[in-house]
């Protein structure tokens, strides 16, 4: 039954509505709902178009389940479940919010309707604002809210202009209309850019991302991995879908150059900002900005497959990194890299997994990051994007230097020992993720066999 995909949204939603009735039941609902989602996703949800309300596209709203969204759903739901499991005891009162967030994220990944996407953007956005209130930095949350709201307004603005031009809200309908009528790309510049900036705010592209700093630099074990891994992955997937189908029609000629320059500069400056930082979480957050920019850069260049893998690799790594650092900071009270020196000397296992995650982000061999990096660089080379290649490589050097510096500080104690205790659950998660990174870095067959033409919304439509 192809409509089962809708349950991925409906179940968390109904759980959310029910959860406010009883504070005691809420955490269990959260766990059950996210667990059911994972099970559903892997065993019951078939590929295809899910029609909602019985009206075919473009009139009704529909959901796409294809390899692309399925991959995104897999990553997001599993990581979500993991992060929730680790934090459920401490952050009970966020259960309802998290349920809504889950519904919103799944909706974002699934929907094939641009306005519906806006709605889910707002749902997940507001849920994200609420998740970040757990940092107890209302001002940072406020900044996130304002900028996020402006971002989604811009998206909506662009969307409405598109509607005014083509009379439809459905992504595929709009795309096929544009292609069929050979619309002059220059007519698409304003709405495309409005959409790009709007989504760019959420995807933390430089320079639209000043919210990230405030949100992540004081994050905790819930908000850190949630925003930096789960949300980042979701938005990247969604952004990828939009870019790859719609915006790419507008990104030709000068506009393409402008966008690429914007992204390339963003990558470099983000790495430089990380290089200039001393606080561990700042380093991580700037690095994730750079990584997000690389992902979008790949999407803009049409390198979908490896962009997807990069999203996955980053989500996995960032989960470990933020969990470790936020836990350590919570116990220690400071995330200055100098004061966290030697945090791993008593936590060898955690240290190893953290290092594996870091090395993977740096793109060193044996780990998933290497395979991904190598492949997307190859694809860029095949596309003869030498300047981009150079920027990414130079940025990688900077990235490597600050990560190595950080790793060494975290491994080798200077004066006073830092004592941080990691629970068993954390350790299990770290080891599991490290093993995944290692496994995908050494045994690349799963990566290679995954559908190479992952951007197949059109195919799904053709096949019904």
């Amino acid at each position: 039954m192809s409509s089962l995909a809708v349950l991925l949204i409906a179940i968390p939603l109904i759980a959310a509505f029910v959860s406010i009735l009883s504070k005691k039941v809420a955490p269990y609902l959260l766990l059950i709902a996210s667990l059911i989602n994972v099970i559903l996703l892997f065993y019951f949800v078939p590929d295809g178009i899910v029609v909602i309300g019985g009206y075919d596209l473009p009139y009704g709203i529909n959901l796409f389940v294809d390899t692309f969204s399925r991959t995104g759903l897999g990553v997001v739901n599993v990581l979500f479940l993991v992060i929730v499991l680790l934090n459920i005891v401490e952050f009970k009162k966020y259960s309802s919010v998290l349920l809504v967030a889950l519904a919103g994220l799944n909706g974002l990944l699934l929907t094939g309707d641009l306005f519906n996407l806006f709605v889910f953007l707002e749902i997940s956005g507001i849920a994200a604002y609420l998740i970040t209130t757990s940092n107890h930095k209302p001002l940072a949350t406020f900044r996130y809210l304002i900028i996020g709201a402006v971002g989604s307004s811009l998206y909506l603005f662009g969307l409405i202009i598109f509607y005014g031009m083509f009379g439809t809200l459905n992504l595929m309908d709009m795309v096929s209309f544009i292609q069929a009528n050979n619309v002059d790309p220059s007519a698409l510049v304003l709405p495309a850019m409005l959409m790009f900036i709007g989504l760019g705010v959420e995807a933390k592209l430089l320079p639209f991302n000043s919210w990230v700093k405030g949100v992540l630099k004081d994050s905790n074990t819930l908000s850190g991995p949630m925003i930096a891994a789960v949300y980042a992955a979701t938005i990247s997937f969604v952004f990828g879908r939009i870019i790859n189908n719609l915006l790419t029609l507008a990104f030709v000629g000068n506009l393409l150059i402008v966008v690429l320059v914007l992204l390339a500069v963003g990558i470099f400056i983000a790495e430089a900002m990380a290089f200039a930082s001393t606080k561990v979480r700042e380093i991580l957050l700037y690095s994730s900005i750079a990584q997000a920019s690389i992902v979008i850069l790949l999407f803009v260049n049409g390198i979908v497959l490896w962009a997807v893998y990069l999203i996955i690799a980053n989500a996995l790594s960032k989960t470990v990194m933020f969990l470790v650092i936020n836990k350590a900071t919570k116990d220690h009270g400071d995330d200055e890299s100098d004061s966290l020196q030697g945090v791993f000397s008593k936590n060898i296992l955690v240290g190893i997994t953290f290092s594996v995650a870091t090395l993977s982000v740096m793109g060193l061999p044996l780990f998933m990051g290497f395979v991904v990096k190598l492949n997307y660089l190859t694809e860029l080379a095949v596309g003869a994007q030498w300047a981009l290649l150079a920027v990414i490589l130079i940025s990688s050097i900077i990235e490597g230097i600050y990560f190595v510096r950080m790793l060494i500080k975290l491994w080798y104690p200077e004066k006073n020992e830092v004592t941080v205790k990691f629970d068993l659950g954390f350790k299990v998660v770290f080891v599991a993720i490290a093993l995944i990174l290692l496994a995908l870095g050494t045994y690349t067959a799963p990566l290679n066999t995954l559908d190479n033409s992952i951007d197949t919304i059109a195919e799904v439509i053709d096949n019904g």
Partner: protein
Amino acid sequence: MIQYAAIILIVFGLYGLLSNRNIIKMIISLNIIEIGLNIFIISVGFVYDGIAPILTSTNSSSALLYVDPLPQALVLTAIVIGVGTTALGLALAKKIYSKYGTFELDEMGDNE
């Protein structure tokens, strides 16, 4: 033209965000953007001589010229979403006020 008035509202809202350091005023600016946007959405569906898209005993579906009903439906959603954001923003503002004792960003110091 009403359409351009909407854009002017959006732009004024942006200007408000640029020039204000007061949290409440910023929320209001955000609202102005949203209102501008909503007007813009409605304007996209406007048809000269069109009537409201409601079937009545005198208006059947193909007899008359209707304005586009879809933007109106969208605007309904957009308004509610705007309300949600505003409510949350105001709640945050209250929280911030209780923490810093002021709505002025400049008076809060650097410790975010």
